[in-house]
């Protein structure tokens, strides 16, 4: 905030509105939104856990299954591949931190070159998000080929719904990142714009944290 105020001196038309707490309106609203998202994902995750092990037919996440016709299905979750995509998503949070730092400190000593390139870090975050989505698309299609769709059993319904909702959130985040990247390329983001990146980062880190929980509960715990 302080840096934003310092750099905003030549932005005379940006008249500041009074706020009771001194915080930005949108930042407070984003926290309220995240609170509500916690309840949404809480409900989705609880439903997945309640239905764990209750599917009448396979394929199952962690156990092999032999169908009545004698066909054998391996445990369907591919933990090494998803570990890789999880790593990519975790790294994207790091890139997001660097993107915010680059915007906040634009033009300051120590932020010349790559570290101060908000375009690079925004692009890197978006790319990591898109890579995660690519992994998810690969995972979904391979599951369908192996015989698990959203209609197959309770596991399929709750798994695809939970991870699909998360993937949709990542996709919205990527769209948001690309919008900010577009603005950055068009007019260059300045320290006064940091609040916009800050709010986007709040969302992005939240989506990332939700994935850590999903990864632990769905993939790692048998």
């Amino acid at each position, binding site marked *: 905030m302080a840096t934003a105020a310092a750099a905003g001196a030549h932005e005379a038309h940006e*008249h500041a509105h*009074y*706020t*009771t*707490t001194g*915080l930005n*309106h*949108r930042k*407070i*609203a984003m926290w*309220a*939104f995240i*609170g*509500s*998202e916690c*309840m*949404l994902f*809480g*409900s*989705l995750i609880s*439903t997945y856990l*309640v*239905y764990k092990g*209750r*599917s*009448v*037919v396979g394929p199952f996440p962690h156990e092999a299954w032999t169908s009545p016709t004698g066909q054998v299905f391996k445990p369907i979750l591919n933990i090494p591949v998803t570990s890789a995509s999880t790593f990519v998503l975790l790294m994207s949070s790091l890139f997001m931190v660097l993107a915010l730092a680059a915007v906040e400190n634009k033009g300051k000593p120590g932020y010349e070159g790559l570290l101060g390139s908000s375009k690079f870090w925004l692009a890197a975050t978006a790319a990591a998000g898109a890579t995660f989505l690519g992994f998810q698309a690969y995972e979904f299609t391979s599951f369908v080929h192996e015989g698990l769709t*959203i*209609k197959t*059993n*309770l596991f*399929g*319904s*709750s798994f*695809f*719904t939970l991870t699909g*909702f998360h993937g949709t959130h990542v996709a919205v985040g990527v769209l948001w990142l690309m*919008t900010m990247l577009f603005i950055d390329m068009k007019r260059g983001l300045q320290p006064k714009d940091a609040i916009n990146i800050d709010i986007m980062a709040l969302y992005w880190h939240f989506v990332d944290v939700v994935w850590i929980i999903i990864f632990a509960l769905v993939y790692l715990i048998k």
Partner: protein
Amino acid sequence: MASHAIPTHASAASPSSEQTGLWSWLTTVDHKRIGILYLYTALFYLLVGGLEALLIRTQLAKPNLHVVSAETYNQLFTMHGTTMVFLVVMPLSAAFFNYLIPLQIGARDVAFPRLNAFSYWVYALGGLFITLPIFFGLAPNGGWFGYAPLSGPTYGGGFNMDFWVLGLQILGISSLAAAFNFITTIINLRAPGMTLMRMPMFTWMSFVVQFLIVLAFPVITAALFFLQFDRFFGTQFYEVSAGGDPLLWQHLFWVFGHPEVYILILPAFGLVSEVLPTHSRKPLFGYNVMAYSGIMIGFLGFGVWAHHMFAVGMGPVADSIFSVATMLIGIPTGVKIFNWIATMYGGSLRFPTSMKFAIGLIAMFTIGGISGVMHSSPPSDLQQTDTYFVVAHFHYVLYGGAIMGIFAGIYHYFPKITGRFMSEKIGSWHFWLNFIGLNLTFFPMHFSGMLGMPRRIYTYDAGQGWDLFNLMSTTGTYMLMIAGLVFAYNFFSSRQRGAAAGNDPWGAPTLEWSIPSPPPEYNFAQIPEVASRYPMWDLKAPDRTEGIAHSHADAATIADAHAVPVHEETERRSAKELGIPMPFPTIKPFMVALGILILFSGLIVLHAGHFALAMATMLGGAAFMVGSLYAWLTSPLE
């Protein structure tokens, strides 16, 4: 103030600014005009929901009547509940949130004026989406609680419940967007000196309600997504043959549904907490405790959902926990009742219509509260569950509580909103018809319920001891309809011809009464500085707050603040003259709302079997929504 005569020229009756015409209403971002839109829309749906109730009661007037068909009856009771909860009481509360919160905290608008318009338009379009199918015999027919698997594809095929599932999703977007907006507004737009513990009690209760909405609505959103996916994409969440748990829906629904009860009642509690001190000419008794008990009610409200499910057999441990939690919630609620009574005790009481309704709420809500505590005991609840006793209970809290409180609010704030008084004489008729009608309708239901009459039945045989009680309930309902017409007449005739009211017709203590009625578009020409809970009384009647803890603490600051500029009618100037930046009117929020409606309608087309058309509708709707959203976000606010 009231004595100074105001000529009945246009300014007393026209809306808060000179803009008129359909386009100005479609594009408005003024919280007061949006509040008025909410008010009129919700009052229209009150008429719709009332007519549904009238048909239900006509069908049940006597044994073995066939006024409507059994299928129509199912649609009527489903739509009556859905309409009253989601299209009447919540939006009526939203009308007051919109109109009053910025005025009470000394702000010029809400934090996000365009998001506010968006909330209204999503509500208005979602309301049409869920209501219009009744003209085609396709209205939802599975109860307002939509229990799956009954509402799922196996037992609830056809389009009826499609409209319910999708309509509730649309309405949820409206409530959530509004809640983010009001949370931000209350946290961040309070005038200087307006600490949390100086906020008017209505704003306090609204604040609690927004948190309930933010935390409860996502749960039903998830439950509705499961049901939506079951119905449209063949998932198996509620499919018992696939191992689906029939209790999953009930748990998720009531985790939302019980906080929803407090979402409906707390705004009414807030309104009567404004009316009672004003007309008792005495500060609210135990302000802090009132605020804390509101928070306690909200907090405990999340821990009692399974008392709606005692009959499913959750076992003694779960039953006991939820039973105790439910009894606990009676404590903060009881505290509120006693504090209202203590507020009146020793006051110099006046009894305008708003006060009658406020006192009516205390009495009627107490009856509903007592039968509520009876339900908290599982052995007792098992006798009453799914009988008319439960219907009696929740109508005493929702009609006797929420609706009475909202009427108190309408009579109290009508002069602020329109600049004119409602007729007290007709108001008195309205109150007494309403009061007698409500008791005649709902009190006998305790008896028919205890005698075993189940809820939601289409008709019944004579000779079970229910006949008289049903006839009484039906008579009462007709009386309530007459009361509603009396109210409508009073509302519209007073709108035209009511006596002019000044800034502060009731001698009320809070900020909204310091500005003209109706308020100018910018609300406050100068943002007030607040030094106490009762700024208007500090100026006009300092003796009323003497000896009250809050003003002792603040006595020094009050003395040198003189901070509330009281505006005279003659001071009315436009925002431009005063150099106050106002947000631009914009159609974009309406367009985004329309995009959402088109997107959801695509699923109905999908169910009808037109795959290509459905995809085109959904993608078109989504593209329209995203495009409008980008246009909105990239255009300046003011």
